[in-house]
């Protein structure tokens, strides 16, 4: 999805670095990366270090860095260049679970306008520090996510969780994922990561189910799930409006 933009802007001096956030690592990211055939660095972040380092809270999020290594825009929502093509519906008469229908209904409300962000990106690539979209160092710091003692502790819990998950201690990991969710509530990828590690139905919907199983809802170890959170916020509010 981003390769076309890279083709356009790389000759003008921009490099793109994609960072796949997934505790399941390269194997889980591989099909998507191989399909995209990126010419730019495409990295795997099993512990979501970009959340701690830059304040990434959801996907897609971006950070802009200039030639000298100065951040000129902190982590923010980065609307994709165009809407991803939806895969064709499978020609099947099998009943669709009610939850999947409800999720699709919320997902259909998700809106974003790519125009202003991409115009700003092109302006910065062409004009550098003269671009009004390149923020001053003070503004960059002030616009970065708020972080108090509770959130800092939540980030440590998240890293413990991902390390425990990688070591095969799933139940122990869940306890720390829960702490991270409570202490860093604005980080939606922390939540989705944890939810996606719970069993979902067989097939492509599996890791996107992210909620209680129909046949054993009491086994769900979290207080919320994708559908309940998105219904609460309203699918139309899923992405914040991009602010120049």
């Amino acid at each position, binding site marked *: 999805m981003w390769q076309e933009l890279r083709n356009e802007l790389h000759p003008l001096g921009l490099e793109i670095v994609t960072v796949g956030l997934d505790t399941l690592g390269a194997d889980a*990211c591989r099909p998507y990366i191989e399909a995209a055939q990126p010419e730019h660095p495409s990295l795997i*972040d099993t512990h979501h270090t970009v959340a701690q380092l830059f304040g990434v809270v959801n996907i897609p999020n971006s*950070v802009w860095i200039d*030639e000298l290594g100065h*951040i000129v825009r902190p982590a923010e929502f980065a609307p994709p260049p165009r809407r991803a093509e939806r895969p064709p519906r499978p020609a099947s008469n099998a009943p669709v679970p009610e939850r999947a229908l409800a999720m699709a209904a919320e997902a259909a409300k998700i809106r974003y306008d790519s125009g202003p962000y991409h115009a700003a990106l092109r302006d910065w690539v062409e004009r550098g520090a003269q671009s009004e979209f390149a923020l001053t160092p003070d503004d960059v710091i002030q616009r970065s996510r708020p972080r108090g003692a509770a959130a*800092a502790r939540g*980030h440590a819990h998240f890293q413990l969780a991902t390390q*425990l998950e990688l070591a095969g201690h799933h139940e*122990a990991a869940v306890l720390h994922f829960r702490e991270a969710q409570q202490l860093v509530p604005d980080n939606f990828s922390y939540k989705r990561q944890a939810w996606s590690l719970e069993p979902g139905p067989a097939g492509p919907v599996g890791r996107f189910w992210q909620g209680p199983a129909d046949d054993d809802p009491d086994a769900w170890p979290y207080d919320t799930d994708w559908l309940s959170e998105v219904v609460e916020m309203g699918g139309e509010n899923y992405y914040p409006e991009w602010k120049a």
Partner: protein
Amino acid sequence: MLLAAATTTRSDFEAGTGWTLRPEGACLGEVCLPLPASALDGDHVDVRVIAEHTGMPLLHDEQHGIWALGPWPGSGRTLVSADAPELRLPDLDGNEFSLSSLRGQKVLILAWAPY
């Protein structure tokens, strides 16, 4: 940063946190946090002492022998400085990539996920 013990080496601490250990304390950008002499003994860093004196949270999972040191919350913001922190991550083949290798170009970091 993740640790197997409450002590580590100076270079691992600096790479893991982005903070540099200097005579005046732990420093990042324009911020320097004073540390007692017991924090650093040669190349030997006592992370418990640093956590206690800086407010960086330190968690310990005793059963599995894992420690996690969280970020400094003292400024109230994620970024302490507008200088990009070093980011070292592997690609699909396990080759480590350093963000700083792109100095001289503009960089757009894009986070995504397959779930």
